[in-house]
């Protein structure tokens, strides 16, 4: 994100909205974006209403109020002068928007948000079949963000266990070597709000993968949110629960359920 310095009056509303805390005041009292930390999520630009005032007008009003020792408490969702300016992004910086701005559709998957499918359409795709578990590792979430070099560390730790990386996942598209988990060199310094490594494996390998994540979590300078999924048994039982508990981890009481209402329903005997 860019801020037009000729318009900015330094009200500070964008500092609060910024998901990464990447906006601050400079020596002139105007807001400036730390471009290394900005993930191009455009939340500031979308949420802050442009009041359309001229900068000189806002400053004059402020001076007048100040003279009479009066203050004005503005709403938090305003940019009085419309100073925020979304830039034209090019490769590799455009990845920041693709992985951080949920309104942007990932070009490789056609899915907005973080671009993943998980179990959301498992009833029609059969992506996870009986005996298989899906694991998602969202690096940078919640609220801290991550560089792709952090994502690569996790991918490289997982790779020796031969996960089946989800082909319709935007992170998979950035992995240059699936045997090592190494990612494309030119993306590593890009920061995003979060990115999801998504793969499937046999149910019995869940403890081994969680063990690897247990170790690699200490090697990254950010957080990651981990999820496990599987196709339910005919009576509604969730098969991965047993394997996760065996491995010594606690399952959340809440989670996601695919109701199986999609059509045509995938049949297990399909190839």
């Amino acid at each position: 994100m860019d801020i037009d310095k000729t318009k900015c009056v330094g009200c500070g509303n964008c500092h609060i909205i910024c998901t990464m805390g990447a906006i601050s005041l400079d020596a002139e009292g105007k807001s400036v974006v730390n471009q290394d930390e900005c993930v191009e999520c455009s939340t500031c630009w979308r949420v802050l209403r442009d009041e359309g005032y001229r900068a000189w007008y806002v400053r004059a009003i402020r001076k007048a109020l100040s003279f009479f020792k009066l203050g004005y408490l503005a709403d938090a969702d305003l940019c009085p002068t419309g100073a925020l300016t979304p830039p034209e992004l090019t490769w590799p910086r455009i990845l920041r928007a693709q992985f951080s701005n949920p309104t942007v559709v990932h070009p490789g998957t056609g899915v907005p948000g973080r671009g993943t499918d998980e179990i959301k359409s498992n009833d029609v795709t059969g992506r996870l079949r009986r005996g298989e578990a899906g694991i998602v590792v969202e690096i940078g979430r919640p609220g801290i963000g991550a560089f792709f070099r952090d994502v690569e560390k996790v991918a490289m730790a997982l790779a020796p266990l031969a996960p089946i990386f989800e082909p319709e996942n935007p992170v998979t598209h950035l992995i240059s070597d699936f045997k090592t988990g190494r990612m494309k060199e030119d993306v590593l310094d890009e920061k995003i709000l979060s990115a999801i490594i998504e793969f499937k494996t046999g149910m019995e390998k869940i403890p081994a993968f969680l063990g690897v994540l247990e170790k690699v979590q200490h090697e990254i300078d950010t957080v990651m949110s981990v999820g496990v999924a599987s196709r339910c048994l005919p009576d509604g039982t969730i098969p991965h629960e047993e394997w996760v508990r065996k491995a010594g981890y606690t399952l959340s009481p809440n989670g996601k359920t695919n109701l199986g209402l999609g059509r045509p329903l995938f049949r297990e005997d399909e190839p």
Partner: protein
Amino acid sequence: MTNTLHRQGALESLKRDYIVFAHTAKGINREGSAPKIREFMRICLKYHPVNMGDVKQGSMHQDDIAIESLIANLGEGTVAAAVFTDLDTLEKVVQELIRADLGICINITGLLDEVKECCRKAGIARHSAEHSLGIWGAKDRLPEREVMEFNTMCGHGMVSFNLIRKMIEQVRMRRMTPKRAALMMAKCCECGAFNPARAEALLERMRERGFLYSER
């Protein structure tokens, strides 16, 4: 999109938090799905969700978004969501969605046992399920537990820690009502998965029991 998977909070609070969302798969049921997604949203709307939206257009709590035009402009390939706060309503929504037989993929995020029971009452067995195993890594970089309860309601991470703290502060100073502060947070969430009713209840509780008293 794991944007609804990792919601945090006490069990009592999570009992007021159910997100129903529609999804489609490319080459299977996505093509021509726009009218079905619109019908899905119309069904949800009948039961007065506290939030609804889709990532391409935004949520009902954003400026200049009328719910009728939001539904009318839903296109194929989008992920449309609606948030409900009680199980009885959720059951009615599920039953009506089954009757409508739209053929798009319907998912619910919420307490898994409650959703399982809801499926049983509606006469279906759940197809697939996903659990969160929580947050790993540099957890010392995270804020207080209360802030996390708000932040994780928007899994895309659009509600910043700073905004949450500011809204809590505004409520503490009585410059904003819990409802207004909750709606301000909901405005940041693009896909409509944020639960403003739960956020309001959390702020009300804070007003009674104290603000940000827990450890990071």
